[in-house]
């Protein structure tokens, strides 16, 4: 008797929990739909006002373009190509410069950060020079590189490298310095050689610092490549912008800007995926655990 009634109560409780869960899930779905809907609404209102303002000449389309003008420009670039050749080639050139600069600058920054982070003397000696080099406005170096390395790819890559290097270096250095001393001592006593400590303790514990810097520094690499092209080039999105600017073609400037933004977003997405893969050992932040 009592056993039966207690199982009855248990099933009733199960059922009410299931109902509550279903309700909570529905609430989450509704909220998600609301957020997406509001985002779309804002985009549509913004583009609509811009288009209408341009049509009725509240906003001068000659200076500030218009969504339809930008779209026509992108479409004509895609279908007919740009004045410098096909659009995909311009994107490819800029991306290639960005990637090369990003990879070289990031690897150099990580290596320098780890070496200086592990060696007090080197760090104390070089810190002053790094401070000086870091305080030079790096975009100005673009002109130096164009003079020294010419209009080809090398000057853009070089500019992208210096844009990336210091950010990644500073983060890697900090990450190495913050590596837990107890953890290092533990590894030493367990039998690790200095090299094993660097690869199995120092680098993993600096990884979240390094990855954080990779996020921002890809954007910097893109800036370096585009500014380099801007200053003098034969190909690339930066040249496209500078040509459009010379012809007072606002549609062209905006269109190139949007293409660059999309490129940056796609790469950012890939880096985030990579990061989640590399640091899967990290506890989820509390807000994600709840969701």
């Amino acid at each position, binding site marked *: 008797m009592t056993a039966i009634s207690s199982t009855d109560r248990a099933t009733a409780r199960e059922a009410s929990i299931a109902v509550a869960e279903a309700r909570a899930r529905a609430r989450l779905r509704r909220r998600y739909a609301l957020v997406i809907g509001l985002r779309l609404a804002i985009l549509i209102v913004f583009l609509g006002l811009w288009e209408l303002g341009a049509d009725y000449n509240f906003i001068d389309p000659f200076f500030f373009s218009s969504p339809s003008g930008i779209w026509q420009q992108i479409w004509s670039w895609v279908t007919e190509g740009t004045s410098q050749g096909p659009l995909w080639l311009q994107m490819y050139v800029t991306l290639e410069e960005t990637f090369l600069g990003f990879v070289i600058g990031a690897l150099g920054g990580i290596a320098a950060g780890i070496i200086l982070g592990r060696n007090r003397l080197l760090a104390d000696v070089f810190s002053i020079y790094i401070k000086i080099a870091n305080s030079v406005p790096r975009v100005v170096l673009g002109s130096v590189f164009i003079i020294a390395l010419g209009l080809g790819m090398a000057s853009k890559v070089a500019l992208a490298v210096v844009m990336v290097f210091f950010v990644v270096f500073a983060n890697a250095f900090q990450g190495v310095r913050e590596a837990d001393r107890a*953890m290092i001592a533990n*590894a030493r*006593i367990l039998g690790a050689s200095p090299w094993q400590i660097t690869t*199995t303790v120092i680098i993993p514990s600096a990884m979240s610092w390094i990855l954080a810097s990779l996020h921002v520094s890809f954007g910097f690499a893109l800036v370096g490549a585009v500014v380099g092209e801007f200053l003098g080039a034969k190909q690339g999105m930066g040249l496209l912008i500078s040509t459009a600017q010379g012809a007072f073609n606002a549609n062209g400037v905006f269109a190139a800007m949007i293409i660059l933004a999309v490129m940056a977003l796609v790469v950012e997405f890939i880096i985030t995926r990579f990061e989640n893969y590399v640091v899967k050992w990290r506890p989820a932040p509390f807000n994600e655990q709840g969701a």
Partner: protein
Amino acid sequence: MQLQSMAAEKLSPAAPPADAAIAIDDVTLRFVTPDGHMMTAIRDFTMTVARGEFACVVGPTGCGKSTTLNLVTGLLRPTTGNVRVMGNPVTDISRDIGFVFQADALFPWRSVIDNVAAGPLYRGTPKAEALERARDWIARVGLARFEKHYPHQLSGGMRKRVALAQTFINQPKILLMDEPFSALDMQTRTAMQDELLGLWSEQKSSVVFVTHDLEEAVALADKVYVLTAGPGTVKSVYRIDLPRPRVMADIRYDPKFIEIAKVIWNDLREEVQLGQSRGLQTGH
């Protein structure tokens, strides 16, 4: 006092014999503080741990207990005096030593099994064999279902057990433990103390176990070192002649145990009070 000679014999510090597992001989260690002053952490410190002996160290906070352990590992060097491990002067980090840290020192990016296998892998054991041994040790500390978990997915007590397995897998002849159980609740701690005594008697290692908790020290040890408030030196040494094997859950109600704890506490109390009043004066 009759009991003192019976169960808690007070020993007179003597120069360590040559074949001791650990011999710290008249060591003074001074730190250079960031503002350039010298700070004496321990002075005229003499301590001997025979092979297979379980020694506990108690003393007020900041008296130099962790410093003493670091001297034995070779992570710190004495300013004067010398430290010998298994009869040899400490020059480098010895392969014979295992160290369970006061702070959590697991590698958070490695799963439980990779954490436990770290020691053998660092020492060049082939991967398959290292994992095999790691699996064995994980089972022995009762975590077989958690091999693939990361440290942040474990409770504090489970992490401590992983740390024990990580240390024991190297089969250290000398085991140093720095307040390993102080963050645990009573039940877990008692269980871990039993596990530790089991592993110790099986491996026949020599142990130095640092603790704040005098009762823990008396329950575990063959020998208890009482240190003075900083700069630390050995105030007295007691031999604990409670029979083994000991059961942690019961021993604290043993009248003999209570008597010993009282005797040593009288000795320790002065130092703790001294340490506290000094801490108040200097503001830290």
